[in-house]
């Protein structure tokens, strides 16, 4: 059953250089219990896509299209209705755990607040529930630590606390936006394991946003690749990783240093730099850097071309790209 259906979602940001398309006609669907990864570099629009769904876009940004969550279009909800969905049906974990938590309130209170707000729980009941949640996300001695403040926790533990808050109301969808980018690799591993375990136990759907191909590969069933605001490739994670098809995805895979490749093996590079949002060409966003681009690439955003039943890419030169892979 479809939980979330995003249809032609576009976001226009107002920048110093005029309006810029941060998200361009992104469509995807997510079933209950499904795990979806969104991978992309800075400026790819991966975070903007979820911020638009949550009604959390920065000032001056406009969203168009639809994002139906349990049948209701999130983009047409007013702030009060959105507040009821956020934190209740949709839990969110952000990159920076220190700024996501209020330094002046104890972590227990911050978990309990969500419960009192959305569930109307009493102070006592919500505190007991907070302790249970903190224990569940692996905070040692949760009953004792419930009254501690964010600065008394390490970075990894703070991220555990934000996960507890996101999970408080038993959401149907958990959105994690670069949840481990600020953390060390060994801690990253623990947090990703925790999220994977919780998602599985509670049968939640997961949207995991990351710039790291490895993080995506190991944690989600389906993958979207974004570049320059557009969804350039999508498919089951195993297919996308076994057969990256869009020239950008291929370039990204080759450019990544691999452990064990050894010294002196040359990394293949993608020429140029990620363009500014305002400079993204009107056609295929990757055209300016793509080794395969032809004049027709600049004409319009390419349509999605199926590669298999569960794998597709937006490229008009897919035949060449697949041949060279």
């Amino acid at each position, binding site marked *: 059953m479809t939980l979330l259906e995003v249809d032609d979602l576009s976001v226009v940001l107002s920048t110093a250089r005029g309006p810029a398309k941060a998200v361009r006609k992104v469509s995807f669907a997510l079933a209950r219990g499904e795990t979806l990864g969104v991978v992309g570099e800075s400026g790819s629009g991966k975070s903007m896509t979820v911020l638009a769904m949550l009604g959390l876009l920065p000032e001056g940004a406009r969203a168009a299209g639809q994002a139906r969550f349990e049948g209701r279009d999130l983009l047409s909800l007013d702030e009060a209705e959105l507040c009821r969905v956020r934190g209740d049906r949709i839990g969110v974990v952000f990159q920076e755990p220190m700024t996501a938590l209020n330094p002046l309130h104890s972590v227990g209170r911050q978990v309990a607040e969500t419960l009192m707000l959305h569930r109307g729980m009493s102070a006592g009941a919500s505190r007991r529930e907070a302790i249970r949640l903190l224990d569940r996300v692996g905070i040692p001695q949760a009953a004792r630590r419930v009254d501690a403040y964010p600065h008394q926790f*390490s970075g990894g533990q703070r991220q555990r606390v934000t996960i507890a808050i996101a999970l408080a109301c038993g959401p149907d969808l958990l959105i994690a936006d670069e949840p481990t980018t600020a953390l060390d*690799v060994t801690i990253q591993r*623990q947090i990703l394991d925790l999220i994977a375990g919780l998602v599985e136990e509670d049968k939640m759907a997961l949207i995991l946003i990351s710039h790291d191909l490895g993080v995506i590969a190991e944690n989600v069933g389906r993958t979207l690749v974004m570049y320059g605001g557009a969804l350039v490739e999508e498919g089951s*994670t195993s297919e996308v*990783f076994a057969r990256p098809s869009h020239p950008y995805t291929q370039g990204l895979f080759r450019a990544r*240093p691999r452990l064990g490749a050894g010294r002196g093996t040359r990394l293949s590079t993608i020429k140029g*730099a*990620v363009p500014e949002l305002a400079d993204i060409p009107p056609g295929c966003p990757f055209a300016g850097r793509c080794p395969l681009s032809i004049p027709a690439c600049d004409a319009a955003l390419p349509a999605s071309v199926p590669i298999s039943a569960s794998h597709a890419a937006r490229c008009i030169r897919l035949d060449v790209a697949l041949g060279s892979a």
Partner: protein
Amino acid sequence: MSAPLLELDDVVKRYALPRESLRQAPRQVVALAGVSLAVSAGESLGLVGESGSGKSTLGRIAIALEPASSGCVRFEGQDVASLTAEHRRRLRRDVQMVFQDPYGSLDPRRTIGWIVAEPLWAQHLDRAQRQAAVAEVLASVGLRPADATKYPHEFSGGQRQRIAVARALITKPRLIIADEPVSALDVSVQAQVLNLLEDLQREFGVTFLLISHDLAVVDHVCERVAVMYRGRIVEEGSPRALFQAPAHPYTRALIAAMPRPVPGRRRERFERANGTGIASSGEGAGCPCADRCPYARERCRVEAPPLREVGAARRAACHFAEEVQTLPGPA
């Protein structure tokens, strides 16, 4: 073997924390707990570790930006703590640094030409010589001489990091210390900078000390790796040997924790129980890893393992290094 270019001998660095009480002496953190390391000329050494492992502190002490609390840092056999003015000037010319943040490491109010020429200020060059040097070094990192009149904000992150590398190259240094030079860059741009570092090493024979949290980056650029944990070097060796058969459980955990683009990979955990995860720099007896290590035994809690030879050009600080080495591969 010739004398090492850079040599650290039992370097300790302590920082005083802000006072919590007027009556107590301020508490101290130990950033480096006795590190010995040698880098010979022409070699590239990678320093790997997580935040708080002391790897950046080590870089700053090696370049004499900060004094060591105890121990000795020698560059070309000279103790950098007691250099004559003349030798200090030579050190400033012979050792350069590339920083992590390409947005923070270039003064936004100076032109690229000014920034790149900054390390030359003490050498009294005239305008033309300076411009020629800037043009040459910009060309060697793939930028145009005309870029010298632009300002940093006109460049992308990858280009800025090239500019930072150009600044480090302009004195024709013997040693470049690069502190996380690619971790602030997008993946598609990282590769350009990594390839550049490799080229420079081949072309100019510069010695590199590359500090990174990313094992793959180090594997790509370096011929020798040292892994740091809580202010100590826990393992040292060639990347190939180290990554195929790590001799220290922490190295093993680092490798296992690295996400790889292989869907649905099996995982191994370093943490046995719910460790606190707080990097305490406790100076108790025993191995500093004992509370996190899944292979820790009684001996680990009472006796700190020294960094010892565990094979050809291979050192590890674990009582059971030989055993750990024979475990099936972490990847």
